[in-house]
């Protein structure tokens, strides 16, 4: 089947997810629908001197009290969600996935344990000293090389071609799905893995975001800290997680008898040139990204049943998202909710996790809530599905991702054509 622009339809046949609410799609989704929060006090490392001491951490059973560095955590979570997604899709032979890998992930760099190790071994804390001592440290090289995670995942799952690792800040997961969508639309492949993963909760990252005044400091009540669209919201809550989608040419998926979970029916993007951490008050870029996604999917605003919002819980984002929604949808805006109220802001994973939950909302006819909605913000005029999940007939979902650096990506997820 072809879409309104003559391109092959792109189906989703498998989903994998890990969040601070649980390992696997079923646990994460059921707890999201139950309105539970995965935000807790950080126990992985000391939090003295930190302004924010809470997060949506994913502590892996295999860490056994020895915390992984960020790239290793990302790799483990990514492998978990790819495995789950491939198993559901039932595609390819083991270790031989018949398509490429698009990996949305955070930037990586050499971390403190490696620097301390080199400084100790060489009895020299300086960079020239550490560099001399780094001879033969293939472990450091391969762990912190930007292409390292993608290569190891590609080798493990036997994906085809060069894996593409990418970042568009908080839109990363959506960009990965967009790249996969485009690859199938242009006939480069019949199937691919698109995922977003992030495991960046460590002290230095928290301090960096704190210095930008981006994080909630509601440390005493972690589960109440992420308050998208609510009057007393004071920032986002950093979190970890991952989601993978198996994307397939719809006809190819039907021909092999796959179960179709839904479609990725469109993607739109628009970059902002206003400011490094804020969107232009005219909303042009986020409105443009939403409209481009609708146009790409061949839909009118009125055909969208639900919006899975970016909804970070920063005062600025939610105000701008409300503005953008009104500009695109006018008086008849569909309900919008923020998964981040429960799982926090999973950064590079957010776009992929939220696309996954959008597809599940379509499958199950249930809108996940925005929790912690105690006092409405008079400037937020949207139906945010406050506190309690809701039944709804959901045919098309718009999923918004707006990133630091002005990188905005919106996806349209749709039900299988009838």
């Amino acid at each position, binding site marked *: 089947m072809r879409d309104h622009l003559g391109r092959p339809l792109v189906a989703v046949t498998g989903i994998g997810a890990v969040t601070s609410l649980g390992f696997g799609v079923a646990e994460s989704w059921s707890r999201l629908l139950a309105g539970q929060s995965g935000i807790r006090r950080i126990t992985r490392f000391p939090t003295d*001197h930190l302004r924010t001491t809470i997060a949506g951490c994913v502590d892996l059973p295999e860490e056994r009290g020895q915390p992984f560095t960020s790239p290793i955590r990302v790799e483990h979570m990514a492998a978990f969600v790819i495995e789950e997604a491939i198993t559901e899709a039932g595609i390819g032979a083991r270790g031989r996935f018949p398509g490429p890998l698009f990996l949305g992930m955070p930037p990586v760099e050499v971390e403190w344990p490696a620097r301390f190790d080199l400084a100790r071994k060489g009895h020299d804390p300086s960079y020239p000293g*550490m560099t001399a001592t*780094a001879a033969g440290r293939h472990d450091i090289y391969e762990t912190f090389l930007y292409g390292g995670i993608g290569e190891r995942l590609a080798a493990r799952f036997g994906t085809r*071609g060069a894996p593409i690792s990418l970042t568009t800040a908080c839109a990363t997961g959506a960009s990965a799905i967009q790249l996969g969508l485009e690859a199938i639309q242009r006939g480069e492949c019949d199937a691919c893995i698109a995922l977003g993963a992030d495991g960046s909760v460590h002290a230095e990252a928290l301090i960096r975001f704190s210095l930008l005044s981006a994080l909630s400091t509601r440390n005493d009540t972690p589960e109440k800290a992420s308050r998208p669209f609510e009057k007393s919201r004071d920032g986002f809550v950093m979190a970890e997680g991952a989601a993978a989608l198996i994307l397939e040419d719809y006809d190819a998926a039907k021909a092999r008898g796959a179960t179709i979970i839904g479609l990725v029916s469109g993607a739109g993007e628009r970059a902002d040139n206003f400011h490094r951490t804020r969107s232009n008050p005219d909303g042009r870029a986020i409105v443009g990204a939403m409209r481009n996604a609708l146009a790409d999917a061949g839909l009118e605003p009125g055909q969208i049943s639900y919006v899975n919002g970016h909804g970070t819980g920063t005062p600025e984002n939610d105000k701008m998202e409300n503005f953008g929604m009104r500009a695109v949808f006018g008086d008849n805006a569909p309900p919008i909710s923020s998964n981040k109220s429960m799982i926090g802001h999973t950064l590079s994973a957010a776009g992929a996790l939220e696309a996954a939950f959008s597809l599940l909302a379509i499958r199950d006819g249930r809108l996940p809530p925005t929790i912690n909605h105690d006092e409405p913000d008079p400037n937020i005029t949207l139906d945010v599905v406050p506190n309690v999940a809701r039944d709804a007939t959901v045919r098309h979902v718009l999923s918004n991702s707006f*990133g630091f650096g002005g*990188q905005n990506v919106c996806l349209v997820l749709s039900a299988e054509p009838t």
Partner: protein
Amino acid sequence: MTRQDVVITGIGLVTALGEGPDAHWDALSAGTSPVVDNTTYAPWPVHPLPPLTLDRQIPKKGDQRQMEPWQRLGTYAAGLAIDDADARALVDDMHLIVAAGGGERDLALDEQVNAELAEANDGARLNELLATGLRPTLFLAQLSNLLAGNISIVHGVTGSSRTFMGEESAAADALRIAHARLAEGRGGIALVGGAMTAQRWDLLLLYRGEDGLWQGPHKPLSERERPGMVLGGMAGFLVLETAEHARARGARILARLDAVASNAARRAAPGEAAASAQSLLSQVAPGGVDAVISGATGAPAAWKEEESFLQGVGAPVRRPGSLIGHGVEGAFPAHVGLAALALHRGGFFAPMDPADAPMDPEDAPSRILVTGFGQWRGEALATVSRAEF
């Protein structure tokens, strides 16, 4: 879907040899010596960046202050490419794909923390030192996607923005995807490229782990007794357009970007990377090529694989790594830019390495192969042809 021709209409090039097409054509067509700093990072030589008049491309001091050298370099070179394409008026709908590593760390702070805590295992004190020592702007200067973000902010490029990570492969795939999107009609104009600064201990530390860096005073690639990389500060940005888009606006066409292909062999056994590149050759150059610009990094295993592959190509080779060093994310687009430059000027470059065979200056190539063998993983090829429009 009708495939459209994709052409190169702008080059933004900065290397140790200078900036811009003229500086590079003049030096490299006549033959030149490398600009090398053998001492600052000894025993690891680097090719330093030339002095840049940042105000010319990044006019606001406030923007310059929000960046560190890596982002400034990339933003500067992106502006050079836009100017070279005379495309300032087209930035609203210009698509952007950047190949990025990460920005500079605060090395003095790292060393101070190391000195106090390497033996101590004191997480609380680490938090305290970082919370008081880290500058707010540094985080944004470190973020990989903020090179693209700064290109949007400084130059107004807002069609779309994507950042690929993964060393040499990231740059080749950025070019491959930008080419494919234009060819299938997703937009008319795109900016693609990457940048790397070599004068950075934090990068030397990372690459040192693989024992792939050349140690000792600079030598050309083919004369390094044990192959190894010499990093070179470098940025390469290209403005790509559909031929139709370029013609409609009367743009000067430098060359046609025929094809870009990439792969990633596991490199578990000798010969795998060479075979991987060989399999790409028929995709990008079914009719053969007249000359090759090699992306040889100098990394030992990749060097052997590429030399074996090049023997089968049967065309004269130029190895820019001997003169400008290895530019990681900046290398592939810079080399494609050099290919476009030669095709546009109707000539070719003098030998860059003792292993480069001389060519009759009259014998100008009309199709050039650009190779990219990643220092660890990734094989990529691009072909660039003389524009016949």
